[in-house]
């Protein structure tokens, strides 16, 4: 490795679909970044994107794409920062076309937008394909498929960087791969070198959730205080040619980067730390070292890995019908008992009057909702909310549930108020595996 190759500066501008925009603008304007990654896709959000695309074939990409691109395209161009994102979600082509439209509106002539497709493997998975980590097959599950996306790796992104794209938009890029690709491209890493790719994957893994490494999702008053949380800054990694890095953030932003914020993120969504599977590598985070190098600067090193897996993970979205939520609140003496009575009434009427045996769950917020069946509290709560959730094949069944909950306003226990109810289409997701050679990423460069 050429020791004179300079440090690569990469940042995060979104760690999930609804992440903040203003700190991303701040980071591009002041971060002197080579690349910025917008990671906007999860098991939940790709399911929603398929739902949107079903409703309108021009949609199915990230709902905030337009506002993000309007704010970022001009400043990324001015700073020479490449923008890499999976905001294309279930429709990368529509997302890339919309980005080109915005670039033209802003007069950014010549801006190159790379559209990476090929993660949609709907035609490639046989109906008898078994699910990963659970019993069952596609055909036996009894729900129509609305989308299937394979996790694409750095090898799907690097060709776009080789063609000097200013913006790279895809769908189901694996999260850390969006960081590994620009690092491997800059340092001329061999993608078959698991030591380097494992180190790059650690950088991606630490940064992919945005502020989760800079003090976001960390604060616990008096135990873990975080300065100026409302103005938390997104992370920056200063990466060396061997893949070791300093995790930091812009001076003057809120939040903090400490060994504690870094270690919490180190194992986020990781099971066996010595075998973290991505399309690029079987990463080994078990011997990672984390050391403070001054205020808001943490050095990470020691990640490694072994060969990448032969199979790629696929998220399958299945049409789950409709999901409704409805609630009514109770306050004051015996609020908990009145709420519990309301729950019994709803349960009895849905089953016995309407014959509805669909997935139903009734919580009492303020007593036992997240703890659910743990049953940790005996009684006496004075401010509770009955919360009913139901999923059913038919929308009408869910409407009946909402109607029953609303009817509590006159027919239920005393003192109930504040009915709200919503119904959304439900997309259930499952995972399965596909041989990597069957997945063929496709690249198209569009120019504004």
């Amino acid at each position, binding site marked *: 490795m050429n020791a004179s190759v300079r440090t690569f500066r990469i940042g995060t501008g979104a760690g999930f679909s609804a992440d903040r925009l203003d700190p991303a603008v701040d980071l591009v304007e002041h971060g002197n970044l080579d690349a910025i990654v917008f990671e906007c896709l*999860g*098991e*939940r959000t790709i*399911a929603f994107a398929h739902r949107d695309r079903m409703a309108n074939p021009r949609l199915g990409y990230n709902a905030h794409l337009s506002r993000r691109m309007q704010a970022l395209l001009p400043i990324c161009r001015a700073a020479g920062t490449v923008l890499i994102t999976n905001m294309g979600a279930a429709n990368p082509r529509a997302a890339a076309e919309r980005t080109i439209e915005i670039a033209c509106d802003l007069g950014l002539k010549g801006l190159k937008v790379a559209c990476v497709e090929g993660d949609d493997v709907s035609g490639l998975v046989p109906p008898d394909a078994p699910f*990963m*980590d*659970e019993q069952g097959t596609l055909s036996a599950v009894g729900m129509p498929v609305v989308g299937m996306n394979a996790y694409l790796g750095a090898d799907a992104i690097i060709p776009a960087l080789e063609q000097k794209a200013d913006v790279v938009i895809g769908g189901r890029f694996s999260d850390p791969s969006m960081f590994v690709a620009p690092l491997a491209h800059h340092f001329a890493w061999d993608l078959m070198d698991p030591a380097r790719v494992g180190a790059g994957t650690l950088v991606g893994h630490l940064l992919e959730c945005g502020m*989760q490494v800079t003090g976001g*999702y960390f604060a*616990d008053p008096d*135990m*873990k205080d975080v300065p100026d949380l409302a103005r938390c800054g997104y992370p920056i990694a200063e990466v060396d040619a061997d893949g070791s890095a300093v995790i930091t953030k812009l001076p003057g932003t809120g939040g903090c980067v400490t060994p*504690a914020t870094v*270690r*919490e*993120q*180190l*194992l*986020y*969504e*990781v*099971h*066996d*730390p010595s075998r973290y599977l991505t399309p690029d590598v079987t990463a080994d985070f*078990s*011997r*990672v*070292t*984390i050391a403070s190098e001054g205020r808001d600067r943490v050095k990470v090193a020691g990640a490694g890995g072994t060969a990448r897996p032969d199979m790629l993970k696929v998220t399958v979205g299945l049409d*789950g019908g409709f*999901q409704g939520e409805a609630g009514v609140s109770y306050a004051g003496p015996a609020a908990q008992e009145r709420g519990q009575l309301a729950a019994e009434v709803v349960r009895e009427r849905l089953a016995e009057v309407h014959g509805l045996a669909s*997935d*139903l*769950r009734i*919580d009492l*917020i303020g007593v036992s*909702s*997240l*703890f*659910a*069946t*743990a*049953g940790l509290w005996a009684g*006496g709560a004075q401010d509770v909310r009955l*919360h009913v*959730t*139901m*999923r059913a094949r038919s929308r009408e069944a869910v409407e009946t549930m909402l109607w029953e909950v609303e009817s509590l306003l006159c027919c239920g226990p005393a003192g109930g108020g504040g009915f709200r109810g919503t119904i959304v289409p*439900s*997309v*259930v*997701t499952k*995972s399965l595996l596909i041989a990597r050679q069957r997945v063929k990423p496709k690249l198209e460069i569009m120019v504004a």
Partner: protein
Amino acid sequence: MSSVLRNTPRLVRDIAHARAGDKGNTSNVSVWAYDAADYDLLKRVLTPERIKRAFPALIRGPVECYDIEHLHGLNFVLHDALEGGVNSSLNLDSHGKSWSYLILGLELDE
């Protein structure tokens, strides 16, 4: 409301911090001792058996633990603990993000 005279038990939260993540129907909770001196206590108190026993209705599968000795951390993997996972669960917290604080809420002295 709870009595002010009640003895406040020491919790895992007093010596450790944690974060939960989800993949499918599996949750993982990494738990980290603030102080290296408390790591042995944490390991003694927080075992897979203890966690499984504390939430019998919520954790339907096995619980595994990976030690990260040099960083004073424990990574618990809770199988079949998310009521089907983020898009299937009818739980308000369908990601199971609150698993971190359910575990931090366990008492140090059982």
